[in-house]
């Protein structure tokens, strides 16, 4: 949050419509994402009640657990769900791209596409994570055996959950989060958590404004909650009697439960696809394909090593945890920098914070040479007039927002102006390549926020975990106890 987003919220209140806080789409959107709308039984950690899912708006699959307290029915649900999810994963691989061999000569490949899951909100992500946790340790033989697809589903959902933590990853997205990245509404973050209210502000139905649409969305009878929690009144008045009838083997009891749950899920299903349409209408940010490529790398690796791997441990061992944290931090930094390069509205946030500045070139010496060293170096200087509150020290490295390869450093700050010395991105000769150095009168923007400012850290192998971190850990091998774990 910043004054910029807050201002957009005020404008949303004044106009009765959500206001854009991005000019491009900052996430990848698959051609056929797997939209999943889960519901869980109230009071339970992760007892699935129902899920509507599918890759086409017109063709949802409805999975229902008529009695979520029945273990067999739960695992039957998990097996059905596994089939849909695993099919989606296999169908989304695309072709195999050959990559140049790695540093130690090993063969490298990458799938040309990857599966994408979309859920309504953060609660949906948390639910998939827990569903993954509750299914990945199950055994497919011996006592408590389950369908072979169930533990596979668990491992995949766990993996998707981990990728969701990865800044800039688009493999598993929560619709409310993605929409809030692109629009500011005239309501608070609490209310934005309601998908129907959020969409009401962004794209109100014909004849309504944002506040009216959001007010309508808060009535659980008109707009059932987007899950995974159900509406308590629905639970008490509809679901509980229907389940009681099912327990007593009443005729068509299961059909009635299905119909009731479908009525709760269908409105959110529609909203999800409306959200997809709205996002699709935005042009894709320039760095989105590169981030999706990282997602495809991660997917390729997990898919290709799936057969050799064990289910993910309950807790990360120390080395893996440290490595993961490091990766997340790096991803966060480059994600924030890339978004600003892609989108002037995000760059405006950095300008407001004084970490970047924009303005007009007033003086320029494009062929200036620095001859203090052994060999002369091309070091053009330019004065940029700016009204931005620049908070950069002389000596700070910056790069151009339009062409990040163009690098420079701040030499001097004056009232309303910055003197820059360009250091790179102008070709190899002592005169700059044509078009690389901005000219007098050009509008420019330079930022100190760069992607990948720090490199990959080295971590010890697992066998070398230092004693300060508990020493080497064993491979996690699921036990009988894991397989037999209660799921009540």
């Amino acid at each position, binding site marked *: 949050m910043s004054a910029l987003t*807050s*201002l957009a919220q005020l404008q949303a209140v*004044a106009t009765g419509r959500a206001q854009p806080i991005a*000019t491009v789409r900052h996430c990848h959107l698959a051609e056929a994402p797997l939209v999943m709308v889960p519901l869980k039984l109230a009071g339970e950690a992760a007892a699935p009640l129902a899920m509507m899912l599918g890759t086409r708006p017109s063709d949802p699959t409805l999975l229902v657990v008529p009695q979520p307290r029945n273990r067999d029915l739960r695992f039957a649900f998990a097996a059905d769900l596994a089939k849909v999810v695993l099919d989606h994963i296999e169908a989304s691989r695309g072709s195999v791209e050959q990559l140049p061999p790695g540093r130690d000569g090993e063969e490298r490949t990458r799938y040309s596409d990857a599966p994408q899951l979309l859920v309504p909100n953060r609660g949906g992500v948390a639910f998939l994570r827990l569903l993954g946790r509750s299914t990945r340790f199950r055994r497919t033989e011996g006592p408590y055996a389950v369908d072979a697809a169930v533990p596979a589903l668990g491992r995949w959902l766990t993996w998707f959950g981990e990728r969701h933590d990865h800044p800039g990853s688009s493999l598993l997205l929560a619709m409310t989060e993605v929409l809030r990245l692109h629009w500011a509404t005239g309501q*608070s973050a609490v*209310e934005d958590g309601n998908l129907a209210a959020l969409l009401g502000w962004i794209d109100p139905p014909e004849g309504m404004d944002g506040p009216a649409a959001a007010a309508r969305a808060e009535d659980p009878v008109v707009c059932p909650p987007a899950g995974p929690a159900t509406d308590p009144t629905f639970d008490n008045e509809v679901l509980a009697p229907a389940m009681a009838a099912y327990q007593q083997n009443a005729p068509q009891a299961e059909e009635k439960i299905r119909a009731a749950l479908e009525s709760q899920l269908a409105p959110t299903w529609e909203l999800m696809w409306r959200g997809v349409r709205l996002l699709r209408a935005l042009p894709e940010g320039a760095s989105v394909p590169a981030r999706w490529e990282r997602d495809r790398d991660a997917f390729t690796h997990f898919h290709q090593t799936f057969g050799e791997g064990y289910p993910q441990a309950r807790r990360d061992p120390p080395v893996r945890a440290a490595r993961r944290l490091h990766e997340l931090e790096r991803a966060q930094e480059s994600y924030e920098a890339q978004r600003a390069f892609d989108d*002037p509205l995000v760059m405006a946030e950095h300008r407001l914070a004084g970490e970047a500045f924009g303005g007009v070139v007033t003086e320029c010496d494009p062929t200036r040479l620095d001859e203090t060293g052994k060999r002369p170096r091309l070091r053009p200087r330019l004065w940029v007039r700016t*009204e931005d509150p620049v908070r950069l020290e002389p000596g700070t490295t910056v790069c151009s927002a339009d062409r990040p390869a163009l690098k420079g450093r701040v030499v001097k700050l004056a009232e309303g102006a910055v003197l820059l010395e360009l250091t790179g991105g102008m070709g190899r000769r002592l005169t700059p390549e044509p078009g690389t150095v901005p000219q007098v009168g050009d509008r420019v923007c330079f930022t100190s926020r760069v992607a990948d400012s720090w490199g990959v850290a080295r971590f010890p192998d697992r066998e070398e975990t230092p004693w300060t971190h508990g020493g080497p850990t064993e491979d996690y091998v699921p036990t009988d106890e894991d397989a037999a774990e*209660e799921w*009540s």
Partner: protein
Amino acid sequence: MTDTALALERLRGGAPPRNHDARTIAALTANPGCARRGVMDAAGVDKDAVARALGFPAQFGQSQFAITRGNAFEAKVKADGCAELLTLLRDRLGLTVPEVSYADLEVVGGNEGRELRYTRTRRLLARALESGEGTLFDHPLLRLDIAGQPAYLEPDVIAFQLGGRFHVIEIKSFAVIDGQAEPDQVAAAARQSAVYVLALRRLVTELGAPADRVSHEVFLVCPENFSNRPTASLLDVRPQLAVLERQLARLTRVDRILETLPDDLTFAPGEALADAVRAVEARYAPECMSTCEMAFFCRDEARACGSTGALGRSVRDDLGGVESIGTALALADGTMEPTPDLAETAAQLRLAARLRREALDGAA
């Protein structure tokens, strides 16, 4: 009866007072500047009924599935004189709990008054403090002064005496999975437990014993993983206790708020109800939605008068404390000259407006 007590009874419109619980007290400390909530809670007004009468019913309904599950879990933990709970404390946490006694302080039939129950709790705990005997005390009734008024608390907890110290045991039905639980739920449990610890400490000091006879470490008992089996974890509530004590001390004294209110003000049902509620100033923030029954009414009011607070505390902070959306927008587009104390905020807003315009025009 004191003047304040009389005034509060009038505010209630003759209805019986509602008991506080830890949830309401924890919520009170979350928004200590709200006079409306302070007065209504001090008077024990049925806020849920008031909100409904005003056409803004609170949505705190609970699913019967959740209630059933919560009750079943609690019953399981407490069954046979808390047998399962004791096993947990002994085996999992390695405590040496010697012989055990269990006393349930809940109403034993008949409709006992709160004062009577409180006296009973007090008497039993006094004996326990003195003799060091007695292990588990279920459903104690506690008292805490809120804004100068005593509030009775009916905690759904057990006071557990071990080695001469009391611990609060709180049973919650959210799951702890691989040693981790939802942070929000743990935080809420910690806030509530802190209220009980504080109330228990007040009682202990009243009885002449040092406050640290009540431990700041609380036992949180939750279902483990996806099962119905309990697991216990130790929760240090010192931070929550500190916040709570500070907020309670800061709470505007109710009698001072009452002085500013009309003498005939009442929250009894009727046509004048909405005006009566509006007569007491509220301080709405979106967080109220999860804790206060009046939230929908207050939100409507805050939105109607264009309050920036309705958009969230972070927005109001970003706007340098400007309370009105109209003012903030006028400062941003330069149609309003800022007063000196708002000069900095106005400059920031104008800059933000210019940057937004530039970026959006450039993109168009």
